[in-house]
């Protein structure tokens, strides 16, 4: 008998890449159901982009839930970039949300005055440990 761990994944871009300091959900997972209230969720993500004009910084955030009001899981993750160069950003994190059904979102923000970067590809995966 096979055993599978609950997981969700997405590579669908849900919003256009933002310019300036606008926050935008780029990837958004489907809801994931935890096996137990104490379960941990492993979050792994990748974002491939070409930095827009006047872009010097890309900030990545993970949200529990689709809306910014739910708050980021961690502090901002900054990457210094150069306009017109391509970057492959990737990371992992862990959340322990308690009981319920949760979605997760990957958000990006750029520096003031920047033009939107070009989204090449991305992935957000959540699985229950």
């Amino acid at each position, binding site marked *: 008998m*096979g*055993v*599978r*761990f609950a*997981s969700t*994944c997405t*590579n669908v871009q849900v919003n256009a890449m933002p310019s300036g300091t606008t926050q935008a959900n780029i990837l958004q997972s489907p809801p994931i159901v935890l096996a137990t209230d104490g379960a941990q969720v492993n979050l*792994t*993500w*990748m974002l*491939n982009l*070409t930095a827009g004009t006047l872009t010097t910084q890309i900030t990545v955030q993970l949200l529990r839930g689709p809306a910014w009001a739910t708050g980021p899981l961690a502090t901002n993750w900054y990457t210094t970039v*150069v306009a017109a*160069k*391509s*970057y*492959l950003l*990737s990371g*992992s994190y862990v959340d322990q949300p308690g009981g319920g059904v949760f979605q997760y979102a990957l958000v990006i923000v750029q520096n003031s005055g920047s033009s939107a970067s070009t989204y*090449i*590809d991305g*992935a957000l*995966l959540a*699985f229950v440990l």
Partner: protein
Amino acid sequence: MGVRVNSFATNTVVNPLPANATETVIYVTPPLITAAYSATIFFRWTINVTTNTGITALSVRIRRGITIAGFSIGAAAWLSSVASGLQVEAQGCYFDSAGALEGPYCLTVSQTGATAASTLNDGCLMAFIL
């Protein structure tokens, strides 16, 4: 009774990087047999490269099968701008649901603009079935 997720990992390089921009298979998994056709296979990879003359970017793909003719699971090749004469690390994650098409996967690398072979110092490709 403990339960383990079916998984595979390799750091065995199957081909050296060439002195050109030809897409080259670097790592290969054995056939990955899923518990159900709807199962998702999660991939995590990393490569550490010393770049050589002419290179302007590393282009990485994961393909179904063991050749560059296989279906690329990403929406596009994953690009990382680099310059020559540097040590760089590229890493990423992705997923695939191959359905009934169970089989091996490979990680490929292209060196955009290269006129001399970069050196693949180390790396790995991990896959596990969720």
